[in-house]
């Protein structure tokens, strides 16, 4: 049942979704790029002096069309078949994974290459062209076996839920598992000539000029962080700002949009915390009159705080109404991308993040992505709510189309687009 969205509503929703999809595709492209680089480093290569190897053929696993393409009716049908197709792909992949496990021969463990401990990178024997050629065809596969999807923590992604990942690697493993088996076996006798990170990575040294520049760089950053701007500067700066404000016809007490937004976030948090605290107090059972009195005082305090927050919200509402008559941005983007937001950063330049295991790193990466996804989902939910709920409530559509709209809306808004409800029409005659 076709339900058409009106042009302006459609324009906004499509723009939002396309924005999200484009950003995703861009990120995927970047990730695949760095995956290619990392994989290449884990194969055999020659430290300094080799021409750049081409990225291995077939490493592109992008199969789906660009995110902004229009789905044909056939696409829509294919969407429904997608889950089944994925299941099948997984079954095939599982079989291959097992083969690949067996294919991992112990040849990688060979560490019997004699090199004096002080040897530098340039002293590592140059490997032959043949090795370079071979390495462009070998593919790293170990990483694939380590990719695990923490299935239970992503209930909103139904397509591949509770299943191993698809996409990267699956196809490659199938295509090259046999080939790799040959490689590891036949490559073994030449191991003495081959440079691999695993065996000789520890011998690598960065060139002197670079080490110098890097050292200077870290010194300069330290210097920048340790010297503070002096009082004379701050005074001169403030004087300039004051003069500018005085020469302006706009009142300085006015909230800017970015202020309103940040204050609103803060107040939302406040509201949640106040409610939580109230519930705690209300559910507590005081055992003596002291506790009872304490509870009463707390509730009174909370009441006063709620009143303060409410006044602040009203103030913000007024400020925003003024903003709405002025020029506006397309989206609210900048609060984190510009230092005006009042955020104080104490340390600039490269910082270190310490991890101790692959798994720890993977958890971190997944969590950050999940937080980003949740934020995007909340944003989309709000946009969809604003556009779809009024459509349902006006009931311009009647009968079947309206029911279809209700189902789709329910699925998008309440089920994250994953499940559908069933509607039974009860004949009043029965």
């Amino acid at each position, binding site marked *: 049942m076709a339900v058409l969205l009106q042009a302006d509503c*459609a324009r906004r929703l*499509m723009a939002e*979704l396309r*924005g999200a*999809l484009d*950003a*995703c595709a861009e*990120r*995927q492209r970047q990730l695949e790029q760095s*995956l290619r680089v990392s994989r290449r*480093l884990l194969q055999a290569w*020659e430290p300094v002096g080799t021409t*750049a190897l081409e990225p291995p053929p077939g490493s592109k696993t992008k199969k789906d069309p660009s995110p902004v393409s229009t789905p044909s009716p056939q696409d829509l049908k294919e969407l429904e078949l997608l889950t089944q197709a994925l299941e099948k792909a997984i079954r095939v992949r599982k079989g291959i994974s097992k083969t690949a496990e067996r294919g991992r021969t112990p040849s990688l463990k060979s560490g019997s290459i004699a090199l004096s401990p002080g040897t530098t990178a340039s002293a590592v024997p140059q490997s032959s062209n043949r090795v370079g050629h071979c390495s462009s065809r070998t593919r790293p596969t*170990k990483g694939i076996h380590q*990719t695990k999807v923490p299935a239970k923590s992503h209930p909103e992604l139904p*397509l591949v839920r509770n299943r191993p990942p*698809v*996409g*990267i690697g699956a196809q490659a493993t199938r295509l090259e598992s046999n080939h790799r088996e040959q490689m590891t076996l036949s490559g073994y006798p030449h191991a003495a000539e081959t440079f691999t990170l695993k065996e000789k990575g520890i011998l690598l*040294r*960065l060139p002197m000029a*670079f080490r110098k520049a890097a050292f200077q760089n870290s010194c*300069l950053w330290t210097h*920048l962080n340790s010297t503070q701007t002096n009082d004379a*500067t701050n005074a001169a*700066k403030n004087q300039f700002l004051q003069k500018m404000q005085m*020469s302006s016809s706009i009142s300085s007490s006015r909230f800017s*949009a970015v202020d*309103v937004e940040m204050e609103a976030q803060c107040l*939302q948090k406040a509201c949640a915390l*106040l409610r939580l605290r109230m519930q705690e107090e209300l559910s507590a059972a005081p055992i003596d009159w002291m506790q009872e009195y304490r509870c009463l*005082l*707390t*509730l009174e*305090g*909370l009441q006063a705080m*709620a009143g303060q927050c409410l006044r602040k919200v009203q103030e*913000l509402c007024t400020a*925003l109404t003024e903003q709405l008559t002025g020029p506006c*941005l397309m989206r609210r*983007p900048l609060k984190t991308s510009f*230092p005006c937001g009042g*955020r104080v950063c104490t340390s600039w330049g*490269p*910082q*270190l993040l310490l991890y*101790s*295991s*692959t798994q720890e790193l993977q*958890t971190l*990466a*997944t*969590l950050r992505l999940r937080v*980003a996804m949740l*934020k*995007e989902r909340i944003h989309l939910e709000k946009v969809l709510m*604003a556009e779809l709920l009024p459509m*349902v409530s006006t009931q311009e559509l009647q009968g079947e189309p309206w029911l279809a709209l209700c189902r789709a809306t329910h699925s998008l808004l309440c089920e994250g687009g994953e499940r559908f409800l*069933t*509607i039974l029409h009860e004949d009043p005659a029965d």
Partner: protein
Amino acid sequence: MGRRRRRMDKEASARAGAGARTLLDAIAALSRSLPAGPNPEIFRRAKFDRPEAAPALWQLLFRLLAPLQVDRATASLGPGAQARWVKAVLCYLGYPRPALAQLPEDGSHGSRELLLTFSWLLAQGPLLEWLLAQTCVQLGDQVPTVECEVLTSPGLAAIQMDAEGPVDLRRLQWLMGKLRFQWQRLICSQQEQCALLSKIHTYTHGCHSDRNLGHLSVTETEMLRDPEGIHQQLRALEQENARLEAALEWRRYEPVFWQWMDTVLGACPPEGPAAPMFRSRIPEHECGKLELATLQEELQTLQEELQALRELLCEEVLSRRQAWEAQVGGLGRGPEWSAARQTLQQNVDQELLALQQSWKQDRSPSLPQGPHRLVKIKAGSAGAKGLPVAEVIRLLRSQEASLEAVLCKLQGQCQQELARLVGTVPGLIWILPPRC
């Protein structure tokens, strides 16, 4: 006498010369520390409002304000669109001078106003340091991750979007499904990337000249594979060093610059009653309105929630106060009691103050900002300088939980609203999908 006066003149002109020199130095240092900073001469010409300085300053402002990740999208924006973007962002940030909004977007004049705008941005916060940190050479490996800013790229693309006709709702569903699938793909790729990074770090352990880092990063290892990369990175690093040196120099001369800016401000004619024009000159973007309208709706909801909360508290307090008075009223009100009451009041006040702090402090999120170089250490090794991942994970988990709660609440609201709407039609039975 005459000789003496001549000497004094000479000294004064030398002093003035030195002053001018430091100002030139200050501007030169500023210009060198900015990414693709304009020629120092531009700043001088802008003081005299020379029209030829305007385009370079519009560009500078745009570069400072356009988020880094939309560089590709912005490359296609013409000067007019860039100027509109700059105006809108500055309005959003609360820039106080309406004169900016009245400048022509073709860059034909207004360089002095633009210089003032730039200086306002510079005075707002540590702009140079922030810019340097944003554009610094990334030699280390980052957590392969997506910041929310990247996922929700600002609507620059939307500016250029064409109008469309009606759209089938199923297309929307199709796109949503696709988005979910893409997210899943991202997770898978990230997992693999993490595994590969960890390996490279282990294999190159002890190779870095900096002991704090210990191992090489992908970029550094790649440089050893591809010598061309070394030259590029070395050049980039040297450029960054030059900018850092310029920034340090700028800090020395900065006060002179601000004094000079005072004179620039003084050279501006006083503002006329221009406020109404400010409103009407900028074309209004419908989407932008909607965006702020969403914020307004949020505030409205918040207001209702707070009102409900306050009313509930009001009732509870009233009934409890009465009950308590009735119960305790007959008891003695000696000095002991009043002391106990005071202590209680103090305790409660402190507790509530702490509660208030907890939401006020959270304004600047405690999650680490900016790029962090990943360093693999042996488990349990102490004394390493840096932020432990475990700490970030802990913060992220709590953030995840609160976001999930927000989403759940929104979904619940929708469910209620839909149930209400459907309830108005008789004879329908809704069977909700099973929860897995």
